[in-house]
């Protein structure tokens, strides 16, 4: 047994193991995600993913990959998107984020879109994606199905300051009998196409169980921002499973309530609320 033979044997094994390792990284990118839509143009297929394989009313965290026609993944694109609602009388956009590359991933891009309404056969959403690869810019547009949800998770309303707001619940997406971390995003409608984040407000919460005498829960924490242009965070206590109405009040930075009412013996519900059922 000579040393060279042994060496090449070890090298072969090492190479084999490392190859195998490399191969296993890429498929992990979309683990836990389900493809929701694929949009194509002459050069690429863009495959969109969400947690549940759907676009839904409310806050959607959306991922996508760009594939060359041969199936290989594009890893060096920059991209942005533009959702647009085609109503019978007008068109408007919705709150959405910019697109960024997912952390720890070569090929996955991500962002969020808040669809404040669902589509139907006559009024529908389309999604335009614009991306640049090696200084060449491409676009693709296609109609997408945005499904309605049965429990309110996004609200559009006009405050007493005459500003139209969009408020979307981000978390808990998987509520538990516990003190849940609650996250929401607040936008104002500047134009039909522009929905910037509203900063420094407070979103007051009061969860109630309407089927059990409208009782509440203890130790909830109203939602506040932790960073500029970021989400609002708070704590939501759910003492049992079932249907909960999260009554809301929107308070601006000077402490004025712009929308919503406190729940009292005579006021059973606020005019703005989210719903959770689990």
């Amino acid at each position, binding site marked *: 047994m000579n040393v060279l033979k042994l060496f090449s044997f070890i090298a072969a094994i090492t190479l084999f193991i490392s190859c195998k390792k490399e191969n296993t990284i890429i498929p992990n990118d979309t683990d836990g995600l389900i493809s929701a839509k694929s949009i194509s143009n002459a050069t690429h297929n863009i495959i969109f993913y969400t947690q549940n394989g759907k676009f839904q009313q409310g806050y959607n965290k959306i991922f996508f990959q760009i594939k060359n026609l041969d199936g290989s993944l594009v890893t060096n694109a920059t991209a942005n998107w533009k959702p647009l609602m085609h109503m019978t009388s007008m068109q408007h956009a919705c709150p959405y984020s910019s697109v960024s590359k997912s952390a720890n991933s070569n090929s996955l891009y991500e962002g969020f879109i808040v669809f404040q309404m669902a589509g139907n056969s006559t009024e529908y959403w389309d999604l335009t994606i614009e991306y640049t690869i090696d200084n060449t810019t491409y676009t693709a547009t296609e109609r997408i199905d945005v499904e309605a949800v049965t429990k309110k998770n996004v609200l559009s309303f006009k405050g007493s300051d005459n500003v139209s707001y969009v408020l979307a619940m981000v978390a808990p997406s998987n509520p538990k009998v*516990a*003190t849940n971390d609650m996250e929401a995003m607040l936008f104002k409608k500047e134009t039909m196409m522009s929905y910037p984040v509203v900063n420094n407000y407070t979103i007051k919460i009061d969860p109630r169980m309407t089927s059990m005498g409208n009782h509440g*829960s203890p130790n909830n924490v109203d939602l506040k921002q932790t960073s500029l242009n970021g989400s609002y965070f708070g704590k939501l206590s759910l003492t049992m499973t079932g249907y909960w109405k999260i009554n809301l009040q929107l308070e601006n930075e000077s402490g004025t309530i712009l929308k919503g009412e406190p729940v009292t013996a005579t006021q059973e519900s606020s005019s703005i609320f989210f719903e959770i059922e689990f």
Partner: protein
Amino acid sequence: MNKLSVVISLLILLFHQSNAQQQASYFTDSTHQLAEVVVAVQQKATNKKIKVLSSLDNYLENNNAINMVKRGAYAWEALINGMASERSVITIDGMRIYSACTDKMDPVTSYVEITNLSKAVIHSGQAGGANGSTIGGGIDLIRTKIDTNKLGVNASIFTGFESTNQQKIIGTSMQYAEKKFYTLLDFTYRNAQNYKAGNNIEIPFSQFTKYNLSATAGWKINHQKQIIASVIYDDARNVGYPALPMDVAFAKAFIGSVQYEYHNSKSTLYHWETKLYFNSVTHLMDDTKRPNVPVHMDMPGWANTAGFYSKLEGKMNNHNFLINLNAHYNTSLAEMTMYSKNSNEKDMFMLTWPGVHTLFGKLFVEDKIDLNKNWSANISAGLSINNNTIKNELGLTSLQIFYPNLLASKTRLLKNIAGKINYRKNQWQQSFGVGFGERAPSISEGYGFYLFNSFDKYDYIGNPTMKNEKSLEINSSTSYNTKKVSIHFQVDYFRIFNYIIGMPNNNFIPMTIGANGVKVYQQLPYVNIFNLSFSSTYRITNSLQIAGKMVYRKGNYQSLNLPQIQPISYGSTIRYQHKNFIAECAVEGALKHTNFSPTFGETGTDDYTILNLSASKQIKIFNQTVQIKTGFENLFDRYYSTFADWNKIPRNGRNFFINVVYNF
């Protein structure tokens, strides 16, 4: 005023004979000096008690230290020294059993039928700490042991009827003994409709059906050693709880044990007994039969307990000692599912007991020292470890809503020590004792989640951060016994520190529809509980005797009265006995409950007096005996409730009963 004169006149009256025998045996039972032994009725020919098939609840209630909280027709909660069941340890043959009902519908006492009970050993205060940690005391229900002197088959069948609730009782007791092997089987069936309170008022949802099976088998290895296996299976169905908003669809208990016993009266260590046991209790509360319920709900609960004890008794010079090492492991889980009227909505579900596992271990020692002819002393001490762990993830996160930093596991060290000095001379006996003890919060007190208390109409939240409850007690008794007269006078004083009680918290919104608010278990710095009891018997002639008793309690924290504290209560019996015939006339009653606790929803109860009449006759037919026992309770059909009746549900109206026991 005339009530008071009744009481005063009763003070000179005397209590019935069985009680006199108790007092007589009070100082003669060498190992259980601190115990008061209530000898239960047996379906034996020698039995002096008239209503042999009464419920165990009625039976225990006759003891001066005990009150029974009534929530329905049966399965009452025993209070010892004016303290709720969290503060006492109730065992069956030394076995710890945890109830599975968050509303106390299934006390341990409900698993033993009077027909298979030989005695209830009642310990007041720290003397009851052998099998667990206690404040108020302990009851050990000792089941019938077989009479191994009677070889072959011995059996009895019994039946009974009570008019107030059309209760039908039927059962049998069979024993079979050989030289080396013996077995005993007891079965009782009870079926009752709604009972009627005084003035012929029917109490809806007070029906019940219950089966109880108790079996024991023993194998004698030799005349010193034996092995005993035993099971109880108790199955109650369709049990109404008129004082509560819910009933019980079923409650099932399996209680099993294997025991090894060594006995040698000549040896220093004359008795050694080791038992392994397991019990499983399943309980389903529901409200499907109740009309106009805002939200229907099911509340099942499960309690499984496994444990052992090893008890060694010995005698050395003037010492008579007991060492008891015991441990048990319990899991308690209770759920609540509420069904929304909107059928599209998902069911509402929560854990009311969050899957709490309790590991408890204790070493208890007791020594009785005969100092001289007149003086003796008792000393007892115990050390226990109590660990509670929330094993259910949902349960833990639920409670963390209230206690964000709550850890799943909590361990407590519990100590108890007590001493008593006794003096006896001629007919007089005198004792004086002091004690200190600690207990851990119960599952409901520590971990309960929105448990609705229908008495004060608050939702209760447990508090796992509470300290141990501690008690200092002083007790004293005086007895005088002659052949004609026996008098017993007893005083107990408890000062309980870190007293656990629910207090309103206005920050929280109640869950139960119609509730007044939320109470969270808190600790009062201290409370005082004072008990005074008096009983006496006077034998007028050989066949005629008269007995009387009186009990008074007071419980308070400063100006705050504690709930469920007995007002002055009294009883008196005249008994005539000639050969196999007994007739008895009894009066019992209480004064108006004035020191009630409005904070805990009490509104006080009126005074009452009721009259009972009964008679018993035993007939011998060849070698067999038939006992016929009959009578009226609450003869004048008085509508009344006692301080301990949950939501003031009234007690039975006029009740005619008949019990027949046939021994063969």
